[in-house]
């Protein structure tokens, strides 16, 4: 597959996944804001969380100052100038899809294109109308589900799909880790308090944001504790948005893609996966949840770099091939 095509597929998937995750984060913030005030502190405090997760707190402050519900929501959902708004993500995803148009199915393209056209219409309609946003978040999630379904239902299982999966699950792992980390920031300022303070609402809404509330109930049948939430979202491989489940998929995708250049990427993914596979939540809390997540985010970032270097960048790797007509032979093996 053409490196540039792989690059576009990878980023198309990442941006769609990212849009969905932003919608999830904002949705939870909205729900939380409906709770009694004393449970979650000031408005500004609450609305910095979603900005922190997506790493756009600084650029928001510069543009709008204090975090206010409707302004943050608009900024993260619809502001075309915000490089990590839902609007921008879906716009870039559509550009990626358009550029890789010949590598995806017509149905996939139609979903992405129709989503973008609808988003443009919605964004004109909604403006800062706070009331309309919950429906909008549902819509974003629906479109993302639809895209995933259409992808699995129409695309042939070759490396195009592997690159799409790679993008999706790397992004999802990244988002779940950030989400957990930010909750940590809001809840606990002191490292030694981890695991000792239980805030039902905060952890509950975190679970809801990753569609894990029901799963938690089913698995633990008990009150919500930070330790278990962390275990569920980090170590359980049957939880679709957990770090472990995401790394399962990332590792598989890399094995499917294979290729001589991908050795380093496969190695670091395998390492990361093994750590999750054999990890114990007590050890993670011992080390510090925040420290652990920071380390994890660093690792996924460098994995992402490895993937780029191995497959997506257009550097001239000709010297790895013997001179002559060997390329033709390679094709047949």
């Amino acid at each position, binding site marked *: *597959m*053409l*490196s540039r095509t792989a690059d576009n597929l990878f980023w198309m998937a990442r941006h769609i996944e990212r849009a969905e995750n932003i919608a999830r984060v904002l949705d939870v913030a909205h729900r939380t804001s409906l709770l009694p005030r004393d449970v979650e502190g000031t408005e500004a405090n609450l609305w910095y969380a979603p900005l922190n997760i997506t790493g756009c707190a600084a650029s928001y402050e510069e543009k709008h100052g204090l975090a206010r519900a409707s302004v943050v929501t608009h900024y993260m959902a619809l502001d075309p100038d915000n490089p990590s708004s839902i609007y921008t993500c879906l716009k870039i995803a559509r550009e990626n899809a*358009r550029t890789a148009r*010949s590598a995806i199915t017509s149905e996939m393209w139609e979903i992405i294109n129709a989503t973008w*056209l609808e988003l443009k219409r919605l964004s004109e309609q909604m403006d800062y109308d706070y009331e309309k946003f919950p429906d909008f978040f549902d819509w974003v999630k629906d479109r993302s589900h639809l895209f995933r379904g259409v992808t699995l239902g129409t695309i042939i299982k070759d490396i195009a799909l592997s690159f799409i999966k790679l993008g999706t699950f790397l992004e999802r792992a990244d988002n779940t880790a950030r989400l957990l980390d930010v909750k940590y920031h809001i809840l606990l300022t002191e490292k030694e308090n981890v695991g000792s303070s239980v805030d039902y609402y905060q952890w509950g809404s975190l679970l809801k944001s990753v569609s894990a509330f029901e799963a938690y109930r089913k698995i633990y049948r008990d009150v919500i504790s930070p330790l278990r939430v962390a275990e569920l979202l980090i170590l359980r491989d049957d939880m679709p948005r957990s770090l472990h489940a995401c790394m399962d998929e990332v590792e598989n995708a890399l094995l499917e893609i294979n290729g001589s250049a991908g050795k380093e990427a496969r190695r670091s993914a395998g390492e990361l996966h093994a750590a999750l596979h054999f990890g114990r939540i007590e050890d993670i809390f011992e080390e510090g949840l925040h420290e652990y997540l920071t380390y994890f985010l660093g690792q996924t970032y460098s994995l992402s770099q490895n993937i780029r270097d191995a497959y*997506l960048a*257009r550097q001239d*790797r000709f010297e790895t091939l013997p001179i002559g007509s060997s*390329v033709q032979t390679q094709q047949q093996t």
Partner: protein
Amino acid sequence: MDIKATNYFDEMRIDDGKIRDIYQHYQHWQSNLSTGTLERKSAEAELLFRRLGITFAVYGESSGSERLIPFDIVPRIFSRTEWTRLELGIKQRVRALNAFLHDIYHEQEIIKAGVISKKQVLGNALYRPEMQGVDLPNQVYAQIAGIDLVRVAENDFYVLEDNLRTPSGVSYMLENRNTMMRLFPELFASHAVEPVEHYPQMLLDTLRESAPANVSNPTIVVMTPGSYNSAYFEHAFLASQMGVELVEGQDLFVHQQKVYMHTTDGPQQVHVIYRRVDDDFLDPLVFRPDSTLGVPGLLDAYCSGNVSLTNGVGTGVADDKSTYFYVPDMIKFYLGETPLLSNVPTWRLSEKDDLKYALANLPELVVKEVQGSGGYGMLVGPTSSKAEIETYKQRILKDPANFIAQPTLALSTCPTLVESGVAPRHVDLRPFVLSGKDIRLVAGGLTRVALSEGSLVVNSSQGGGTKDTWVLED
């Protein structure tokens, strides 16, 4: 000036208002539709096109703007008998044009025979001296040709122009059919419309046949200038229909006169490039040095015979509007045949007498730039104001050799859905002709329609629309 559509050949109706045989069945179906059905279906079609993202960019408008080419849901219908006649004429013409290109880049017999002047060929800006003596597979230069035809009477077709560089529009031919079948399945159940859907397969076969001689299983790619090009949708569409990679110049590189693409598994050699990039931008080492769309060394690889470019380099010299004049002579010279399709009488304004005549008769003439395309920068005398004609006249006088003039043709009309209902509008036809080891074309093409009343300019860039084109057994 008010032009009455009744002065023109009507594709559906005979002078007394009777329906031609070939349209009988369709017209019967249409007249039984409840009021508003066509309008509703037309709106549905627009949604489909928008959803599919079948858009094109219009140059000169704000960059990145994407527009739909209006699609008209009334089909244009040919009978098999008419089509067979057309097909023969089209193939004959393309065969002669390729023979001409091979000749001028080799022995130049046609110049030696005095049929066409040396200056006309070698002095042409689109003649590529780099191609002199280069042998191409099948001796074919224009593997994909778009021949624009207009009809003025029952059996009277004219070739308006030959497109031998990077003719576009075939994706519309295919999507128009697709959309029609989605909107009106019952029509296709009751009409035996000849299929066009196998065009991508025919194109792929043609590209395979165009591979360098020693390559048995060629790797084929479509090369696009990028996603901001007006025809990007088509490039992506064709690549995916053929199951080949869609590349940009940046994806390719040349090593020891061979072309490779960067893949996730290292470099892979490419043997056939269906390029939709103009000659000028292909190779910065030979043509425009500022081109970022091309591949350094590509022409060298091409001339060494290690990669095929379709269309070949230097075809522009044959589809130039001043060369057009000679095509009937080429048919006689190379094939020894009488041209089956007529050329539009053409005045070349480089000639003194022609210029004089044209300047005196501008209000009746159509004037075009010799190397123009897409309907940009042309004058349609009968529909232009005095002031427009005067401005254009000054342009001609600055460089007469850059223009040709033709009589305003009475383009046939075809029923078309417009605001006031179904009314006749002028149409032309672009069939797509593929030349590999054989010459092939599907039964159909792109019918373009001028949507404003009386307008004779059908180009999409000038607000024209398109129609599905049917060939039916008579």
